[in-house]
């Protein structure tokens, strides 16, 4: 395989050293950028929905007469677009790219990847429309209707083939933490999803067994699928940029297995005081504390990210802090005496946003800023947009999480006072919820900048390709 165009294209404006773009990247460019691009589009869509639901939180009558956008449906759509649209697409693109690079061979199964990406996004789109017309399942992180979900497993399988082939055909004997996490995510989601669909949609269990299963699934989506995707990105990008081996790398396997084995057991903390067997809650409380081992090791490993100036690392540092903070607060709120206050309030939502936006998405952003120039062979179209994106998203996430936590705390205190009517509870939290809408707007704005920058970069890369392939037409193309 020749890759002259790549080297030819890395002109003076490119942000990447020519040697850093490998044939693996060139071959996989199309399908991976498709995944990534659809992910960013979903992120913007979920931002629009997030803005709507955040307004509905303090002004319940906003768009209330539109049956497609009741708070319940809009929130389900936002969550689905965010997790299955943005996080899944971007995470898969990163995981497969990382497996390919660390495997040392060009990616294979790219037609499967392309078809799978198209099918996955179609399924998510059908699922979101299904939620809008009222076919939502009502289970958190599992809202898509029954007619969309089976296709997602098939599409996911098709996408994952490329990653599995890259792992099977790896050249090196040893493996890296980034590979374990990426591979775990590729394998575990289809199993999780199949089980979840079976016990919740196709052969529903009786009564609250469904809720226990749904909780186990939702926790699995985070600890067995999304968190590994984010960590794979962080474990790969940090040593690449710093050029150093991760600190305390020997402990990484323990951190990995702690997450994989203990993570799924922590879901029951959301059922404290609920109509379920008490052991589920007790086990979850214990597991939440045991899981601190994982967070400790991640901290020890990823503290290597500090000390080197870089946009990509800046995102990842933020992501690591948010991830660790989220894990620690999860363990604290798992205790019954704390849960008494925080359970059923927006504080739980704040924690979820801290994990999904502050932790996962920020790690993804960092890795995307690292990956895209290597895939396209050109630097990012605008460093100004990248800086603005980082600024807006950082501010947005912090304000988002803090306002939700403050609103949740005030709500929790009010709920425990039997004399406070609900109209007052909403009223007391009005100020933080208004600011929360502002944060959603800032995040939407930031992510629009990312989308614009991404599309501009692709365009530059395509134009450069055309120039490289058609030397005759150079003048016309560059004139445009």
């Amino acid at each position, binding site marked *: 395989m020749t890759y002259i165009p790549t080297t030819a294209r890395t002109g003076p404006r490119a942000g990447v050293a020519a040697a850093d773009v490998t044939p693996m990247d060139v071959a996989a460019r199309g399908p991976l950028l498709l995944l990534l691009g659809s992910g960013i589009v979903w992120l913007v869509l979920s931002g629009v929905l997030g803005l709507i639901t955040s307004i509905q939180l303090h002004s319940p009558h906003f768009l209330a007469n539109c049956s497609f956008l009741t708070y319940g449906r809009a929130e389900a759509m936002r969550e689905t677009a965010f997790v299955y649209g943005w996080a899944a697409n971007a995470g898969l693109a990163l995981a497969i790219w990382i497996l390919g690079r660390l495997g040392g061979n060009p990616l294979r199964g790219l037609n499967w990847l392309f078809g799978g990406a198209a099918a996955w996004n179609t399924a998510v789109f059908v699922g979101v429309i299904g939620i809008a017309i009222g076919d939502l*399942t009502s289970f958190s992180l599992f809202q898509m209707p029954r007619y969309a979900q089976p296709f997602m497993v098939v599409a996911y399988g098709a996408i994952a083939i490329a990653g599995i082939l890259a792992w099977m055909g790896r050249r090196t004997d040893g493996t890296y933490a980034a590979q374990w996490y990426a591979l775990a995510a590729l394998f575990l989601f289809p199993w999780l999803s199949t089980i979840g669909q079976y016990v919740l949609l196709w052969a529903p269990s*009786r009564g609250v*067994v469904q809720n226990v299963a749904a909780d186990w699934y939702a926790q699995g989506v985070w600890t067995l699928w999304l968190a590994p995707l984010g960590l794979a990105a962080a474990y790969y990008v940090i040593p690449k940029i710093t050029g150093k081996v991760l600190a305390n790398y020997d402990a990484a396997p323990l951190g990995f297995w702690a997450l994989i084995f203990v993570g799924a057991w922590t879901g029951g903390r959301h059922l404290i005081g609920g109509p379920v067997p008490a052991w589920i809650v007790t086990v979850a409380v214990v597991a939440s504390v045991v899981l601190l081992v994982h967070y400790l090791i991640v901290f020890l490993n990823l503290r290597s990210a500090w000390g080197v100036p870089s946009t990509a690392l800046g995102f990842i540092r933020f992501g690591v802090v948010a991830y660790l903070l989220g894990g620690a607060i999860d363990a604290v709120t798992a205790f019954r005496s704390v849960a*008494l*206050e925080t359970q059923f309030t927006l504080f739980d939502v704040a924690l979820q946003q801290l994990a999904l936006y502050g932790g996962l998405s920020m790690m993804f952003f960092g890795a995307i800023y690292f990956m895209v120039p290597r895939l396209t062979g050109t630097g990012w179209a605008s460093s100004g947009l990248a800086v603005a994106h980082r600024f807006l998203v950082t501010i947005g996430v912090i304000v988002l999480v803090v306002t939700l936590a403050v609103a949740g705390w005030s709500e929790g205190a009010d709920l425990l*006072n039997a004399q406070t009517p609900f109209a007052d*509870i909403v009223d007391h939290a009005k100020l933080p919820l208004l600011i929360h809408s502002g944060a959603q707007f800032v995040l939407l704005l930031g992510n629009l900048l990312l989308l614009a920058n991404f599309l501009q970069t692709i365009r530059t890369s395509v134009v450069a390709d055309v120039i490289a392939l058609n030397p005759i037409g150079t003048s016309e193309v560059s004139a445009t």
Partner: protein
Amino acid sequence: MKNGPLLFLGLFAALSISWGAIVLGTHAQIGALTPYYDDTEGASFPKRGSGLAAQGEREYIALGCVACHTQQVRRPGFGVDDLRGWGDRQSVARDYIFQFRPQLGSLRLGPDLANFGDRKPNPPDADELYKLLYAGTPAHPSYRFLFDRRRVVGERSLVALNLTNELAPGRGYEVVPSSKAESLVAYLLSLKNGYTYPEAQPAAAPAPEKKAGASSEKAAPAATKAPATEPSPETEKSNPRGKRPEQAVPAAAPDENKKQTK
């Protein structure tokens, strides 16, 4: 970790064990719960809802009501659900066995609805609910798409809403609930957990007090109020520990029954 198959097996084992324990374990424990037959009542509980209520349950799910309303009452002494009039006892798994998809929920932006049909101090009626759904309140959205505004032909419909002032539909018009609204309201009114199952009896009295004493400062008021609402003296007498629940329940049931028929 050079061994690929071992990594694969580890992943498989991790998922299988947690699934086996949590999902299958719960299923084995409470997956085959049957209604509880009470000899004195000559009836079994929970009661199956009407067909209309079952339709309303689907509507409740479809609208996403669960995003703001839980349907799980916490036990007296753990939170103030009882003082808010949401239910005198903790919700138990048996309450949900006839539900198509239990709407436990995880966020309380609105009141808990597990026992909504028996809400204290005054249970809701259909007119009140229609009006709430149509007009909303400062804390609740108005869902007018659940209603039809139509011209009055002949006599005014019996189910038309009595709306006044700015809500009035205009001369010659009336607002009637759609079939969706009717089933939704029937469902909401059918949400009653009046019957106290043996497993829903409060545990031995010291337990909640010790719990509340150990918990945070904010829980303290709840703890001081809790003993007043706990029916401990009678319950202790009628349901002594170690006695078979089948024998114990009838003694506690008649008083619960009164609440239910109210």
